[in-house]
């Protein structure tokens, strides 16, 4: 895979995430100017807005699962913002999308135990997710409960 292909998989992941939100009755919009948000996800009835950042990674197979590495901007991970950023971490296996972790910024920072000093001098943070059988691990923490967890995007009936 070339670096150029990263653009393709990134856009594919973004559209995949958008389709999942649409199937749950949430509207989606892509900002015309890229300032860090990939998708605005909106509840049409009352204008409730969620900012979604989609990160994609191609997994490398291991004996009982895979390893996938995501890159997240340090500044973004450190800064509380309203509305908060919801990260969608999408894992691609050769033939299909596999896992989809949905986790908000403060929770991800807490799970990574991310502090200001860890961000020193680095513009991005490398987040490594490992699947071991049915468990998803990141920095030694079990993130399985965030996999395909749409609690913050409950299905809207139209």
């Amino acid at each position, binding site marked *: 895979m070339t670096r150029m292909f990263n653009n393709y998989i990134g856009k594919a992941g973004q559209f995949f995430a958008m389709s999942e939100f649409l199937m749950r009755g949430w509207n989606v919009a892509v900002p015309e100017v890229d300032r860090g948000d990939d998708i605005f996800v909106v509840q049409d009835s009352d204008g409730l807005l969620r900012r979604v950042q989609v990160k994609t990674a191609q997994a490398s197979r291991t004996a009982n699962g895979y390893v996938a590495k995501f890159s997240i901007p*340090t*500044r973004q991970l*450190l*800064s*509380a*913002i*309203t509305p*908060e950023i919801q990260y969608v971490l999408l894992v691609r296996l050769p033939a299909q999308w596999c896992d989809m972790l949905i986790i908000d910024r*403060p929770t991800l*920072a*807490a799970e990574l*135990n*991310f*502090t*200001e000093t860890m*961000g020193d001098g680095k513009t991005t943070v490398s987040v490594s997710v490992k699947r071991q059988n049915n468990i998803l691990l990141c920095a030694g923490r079990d993130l399985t409960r965030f996999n395909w967890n749409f609690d913050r995007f409950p299905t809207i009936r139209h």
Partner: protein
Amino acid sequence: MNTVKIHVNKQLDGITFGLPVASLQAIEQEYPYAHPTSSLFVYFDPTLDFDVYSGRFKTYVPSILTGLKEDDLARLQVMFLDPVTGKQFFAVTA
């Protein structure tokens, strides 16, 4: 824990105050009753001077964000910081 750090992110129509992970975890460990929250948004009129509000931020935000009782909070130094530069917005010392 001697210091509570509060991250400040100015937005167009207000400010989001956030508790960094280390502060959040320290409060949870040392003050189990507190139930701190990770962020708090305060809306204000952007046409007015920020300084008009800063006094009120210093007074009320630490209490709401940390969930600490007044006497516990009074023993701590509270720092309002830019999360990226580490620059201090204003300090509160009891």
